[in-house]
């Protein structure tokens, strides 16, 4: 009986706090995407040759963790199959956040654009019983820094 009560408490907590944190994060992401919309991130490998850009490798990484509610929802999905919507928003946030951090680093160097952007996803700390603990997303690329105008 007490197991059930504990479970429900954790579930509600996970849901409430998780949803709040997610909304806050998304707001922050949208703000910063607005801010860095002038700094394009391109996945192409061939940058423009002129002017002679300075280069620097820039990276941005995020580790996001699941809350109890999402974990339970995903476990239920494992029974019935189908889209695990609980993790979709998680990964989306992690990727966009990493990209923004990379752009932040590039902006700090005074870059115009970031080229050859690539992503790496890894799942860290499997948590108990092989269920996901947290995900790390790394975004990296080459920042192209225009020389100062003479």
């Amino acid at each position, binding site marked *: 009986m007490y197991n059930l009560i504990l479970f429900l408490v954790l579930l509600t907590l996970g849901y409430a706090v998780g949803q709040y944190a997610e909304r806050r994060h998304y707001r922050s992401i949208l703000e910063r*995407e607005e801010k860095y919309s002038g700094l394009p991130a391109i996945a192409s490998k061939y940058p423009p040759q002129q002017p002679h850009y300075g280069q620097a490798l820039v990276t941005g990484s995020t580790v996001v963790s699941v809350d109890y509610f999402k974990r339970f929802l995903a476990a239920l999905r494992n029974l019935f199959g189908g889209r695990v919507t609980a993790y979709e928003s998680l990964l989306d946030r992690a990727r966009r956040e990493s990209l923004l951090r990379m752009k932040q680093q590039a902006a700090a160097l005074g870059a115009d654009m970031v080229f050859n952007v690539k992503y790496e996803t890894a799942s860290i700390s499997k948590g108990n019983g092989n269920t996901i603990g947290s995900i790390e997303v790394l975004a990296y690329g080459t920042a192209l820094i225009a020389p100062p105008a003479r």
Partner: protein
Amino acid sequence: MRYRNPKIPEGINVSPGHPLRELALLAGAAILLIVILAFLLGQFGGRLARLLPFEHEAAIAPVELLNSDAGPALQGYIDALADRLTQRMELPEDMRISLRVDGGETFNAFATLGGNVLLYRGLLEALPHENALAMLLAHEIAHVAHRDPIVGIGRGAAVQLVFGLLFGDPNLAVLGSAGLYTQLHFSRAMERSADSAALAAVHGLYGHVAGARDLFNTIQAERVRSGSGEPPAVFNSHPLDQKRIEALDLLASERQWSRIGEVTPLPATFGRWLDEAAAASKDRSAH
């Protein structure tokens, strides 16, 4: 060559839809699945277990764990009473009942595999008269006659096996309790049917059912005395005592069994026999 990052609309990589709705849907479906599955498995396991012949049951009964502290007088008395009851209960040919008394002060009695029934002194002491004792013995014998012990084990084993496979994920452990609820329901049905059979046997023996309900009154009084509150109905494998009494009253009035009659008192030496059993139990645990 222009390089831009136009804004990408939301909702493409993230599915719209409220997570609570999804939870309700999935959890509801899961619980439904579990209850149906547990029910079917229970039935299957029970039926399979019932096929096991009774003699083999005796072979796997945990006889060594059952203490026998009754002196010859006490054993003779309860055996005789049990014989008179079984004559009226249509036991199958090969079934033998072995009664044992444990001198410990636990307030309980149960029937297990192989026709073995264990009665604790704690419960025997509290019985007011022979009719209540007869009701108790008849109830346990009815469990054996219905093969409830082996069926219970069969059901439990089947459910546990499949649920272990399906719900190995520790996050879903909580859903296992939904299956447990179904199993408890079986136990309650078993208790009810044992009660009815016992009442019929007691009526056959004494010609009336006066005093049979005193067994439940005794149990209820003990619960109140020891302060253990009744757990909620669904998590208790025995139906609430009040409901059991009502069910028996209903049965008695349907069959028009008289509830009025003289109760047979326990033998005068019954108390002494129980004390001897208690002493024997202490001796045993001292070694």
